[in-house]
């Protein structure tokens, strides 16, 4: 343990340098502003601000990007709670119970608890990053294609049970997501699938365009239709109103601890990360807690996923920094900054550049502390930002969304993807389907296919290789149990209804 302490001291010496402190503040502040604005997510924010980093020292550049990264995630939850518009796919979970809380007049508490849960999850994630870095990296090596496949099956089954209401509708959404995910070049042969000859579709439908469309644009259409009740931004966010009740505090502790653990684990796995972690945490809390309050403003539904999300944001750096494997597009960009500054990410970074590694880690913690200290007094500012009248706000958001997509891709066809999926998302909403499982299916579907086929390729077509390791057995077993449980519940509800029907 002594070495961890030494490393923390070394890291703090770097993180507390005035320049690094300033860049940390700048990143957190810019990130939160951009995150609060709906439609601007982590990826867009980082893509917009990433050229700045070419002019500063590597550590400062990474500190800045790190600040933007978790500042945006934090800000994304703010708009998710207040407007039901997640700035990022991973803060979509905050909508599920955060927005109902806001509608009940508990917005202040929801925002306060989000901040506390973020800080808590972030701290746990950083401790995991420091202490378990070598261990988690080693367990990531133990994940082969078969294990990834099993884990993704579990993620998708868990995701479809999040859909409030019918599990069947959730599975339907996952399947549509998988289908959309299959557009583009086949990993194994390069064959183009479902591109209809459009070059822009060769690499598939863009996740940013899809997420912005299906969450952002469809929300705007929805809000325009129901503009009469647009008064929801009139929240009481005085310090008194932010204070949670004792029972809310009590209800939040365990979800925060569980969420942090789930988040730390999924963040460290390449290819998963905050999105899956927050859904897993939500699904866990929904299974453990009293189901009837979920979706109607349960505090556990806010604090658990929020802690998970932020813990995952931190541990996502483990594979990126120690193995050079980015778990997400955001991490891929951060990896790029390292390479530009002549740092070869990989097992050698921790050994050869301890000041960089530990300085970065400790600056994450300083950044989380800044978020906590800054945002409790500044929640009012963010709320005021959202108080801009909707007839001005929504066209502006739409503009930001289009701008964001254009700056990311330099390609107008992606704007059309946003608008079309936006219309589609509104239709889904109208019919009572949830978009969240669709996004997850979209992300995980192609990865599942890749790992499914690789497992068979490596084993020479032997299907038992899917259940040859303990990790796969547990994941697939739990998935089967969840699926069975969901189907039984659906059947029971239906037979109950048909009994009550004629009465």
């Amino acid at each position: 343990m002594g070495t961890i302490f030494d490393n923390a001291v070394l890291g703090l010496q770097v993180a507390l340098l005035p320049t690094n402190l300033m860049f940390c503040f700048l990143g957190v502040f810019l990130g939160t502003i951009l995150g609060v604005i709906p439609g601007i997510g982590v990826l867009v924010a980082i893509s917009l601000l990433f050229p700045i980093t070419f002019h500063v020292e590597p550590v400062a550049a990474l500190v800045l990007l790190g600040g933007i990264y978790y500042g945006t995630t934090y800000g994304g939850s703010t708009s998710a709670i207040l407007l039901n518009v997640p700035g990022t796919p991973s803060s979509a979970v905050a909508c599920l119970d955060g927005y109902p809380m806001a509608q009940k007049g508990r917005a202040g508490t929801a925002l306060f608890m989000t901040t506390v849960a973020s800080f808590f999850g972030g701290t746990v994630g950083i401790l995991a990053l420091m202490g378990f870095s070598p261990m988690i990296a080693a367990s990531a090596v133990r994940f082969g294609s078969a294990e990834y496949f099993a884990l993704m099956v579990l993620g998708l089954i868990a995701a479809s049970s999040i859909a409030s209401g019918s599990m069947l509708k959730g599975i339907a959404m996952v399947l549509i997501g998988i289908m959309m995910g299959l557009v583009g070049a086949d990993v194994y042969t390069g064959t183009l699938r479902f591109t209809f000859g459009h070059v822009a579709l060769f690499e598939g439908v863009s996740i940013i365009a899809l997420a912005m469309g299906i969450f952002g644009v469809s929300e705007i259409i929805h809000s325009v239709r129901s503009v009469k009740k647009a008064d929801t931004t009139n929240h009481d966010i005085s310090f008194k109103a932010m204070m949670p009740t004792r029972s809310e505090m009590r209800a939040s502790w365990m979800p925060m601890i569980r969420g942090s653990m789930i988040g730390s684990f999924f963040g460290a796995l390449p290819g998963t990360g905050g999105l899956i972690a927050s859904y897993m945490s939500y699904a866990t809390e929904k299974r453990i807690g009293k189901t009837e309050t979920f979706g109607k403003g349960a505090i556990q539904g806010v604090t658990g996923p929020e802690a998970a999300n932020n813990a995952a944001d931190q541990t996502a750096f483990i594979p990126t920094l120690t193995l050079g494997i980015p778990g997400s597009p955001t991490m891929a960009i951060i990896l790029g900054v390292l390479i530009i500054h002549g740092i070869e990410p990989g097992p050698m970074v921790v050994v050869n550049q301890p000041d960089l590694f530990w300085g970065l880690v400790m600056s994450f913690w300083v950044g989380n502390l800044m978020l906590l200290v800054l945002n409790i007094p500044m929640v009012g500012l963010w709320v005021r930002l959202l108080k801009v009248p909707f007839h001005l706000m929504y066209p502006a958001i739409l503009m930001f969304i289009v701008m964001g997509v254009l700056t990311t891709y330099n390609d107008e066809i992606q704007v059309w993807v946003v608008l079309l999926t936006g219309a589609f998302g509104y239709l889904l909403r109208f019919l009572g389907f949830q978009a969240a499982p669709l996004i997850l299916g979209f992300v995980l579907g192609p990865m599942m296919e890749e790992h499914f086929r690789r497992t068979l390729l490596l084993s020479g077509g032997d299907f038992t290789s899917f259940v040859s390791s303990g990790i796969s057995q547990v994941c697939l077993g739990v998935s089967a149990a969840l699926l069975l449980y969901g189907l039984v519940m659906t059947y029971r509800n239906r037979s109950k209804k048909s009994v009550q029907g004629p009465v």
Partner: protein
Amino acid sequence: MKVFIAALAVAFSASFALAADYPERTISIVVPYSAGGVTDAYARQMLPKLQERLGQTVIVENKPGSGSLVGAMDVARSEPDGYRILMTAYGVISNEVLMTNTPFELADLSPVYMLGRGSNMLMMRPDYPLDTIQEITDWAKAHPGEMKLASSGVGASPHIAAELWANRVGVDFLHIPYQGSAPSRLDVIAGRVDGMFDGVSAVSYVESGDVKAIAIASEERHPSLPDVPTFKESGIDFVFGTIFGFYVPVDTPQDVQDQIFAALADVARDPEIEKTLVRQGLDTTPRTQAEFQEIVANELAQLNELVKLGRLTPQ
């Protein structure tokens, strides 16, 4: 009529001015990969010196998509005036052969300046029982289709390298493609595949003992890996690596191309920039435009041969 003559005069003077006064406005370097990649990093690193040398603003535009196809197409269709320059890695060459069904031809571009050439090395999992390229080749010959070689993707340079090597020594292997080099490296480290032809950027994994480097496909040994023999030393005439280069639309006036070549050549010889490129494992031997064009033509011929032999399948 007057208007027509005036327009003609303007058009004429414009095309005249183009050659003499190039460059007179902002130049875009189009990188067909996303910001943060290796190619993007090289382009951005050259940016300040290039602006100084050309006396104009130079910007990098990232146009990622379809393994460099989107960006390459963008430049191929732009005005041939030297204000849109493509900077790309190997993809633009392999796509020409592997992705035939696209509205883009490599012939629409003129290779101007070759920044450098990487080299691929064969690295095997740490517990792989054989240590020399000769033993490995013999084993692969005796066990056709059994050696599992990973790559960062179909048509990516590790894949092409493996096929070229296999073709040269006459063996068959099982190709396991991944999405990007990082996940494929991890499975080599974890021992799920036997090995892969990776770029020299994987040096740190060799140093840390996570993988074993067997042989390198370059003319000479790499300074960071003095113990790793070249294929040539082992009697296999095999040199291969990705090619970083600049391309302009084919109809760009030759004197503009010459000016671009001169500017790029100056900037690339800057000691600081050259140092970085060499550290990344690039062979930065100066080459003329004609040499670069010949190299591209040779690569195409080599790839087409693989297609003819059925080792690569175009889409």
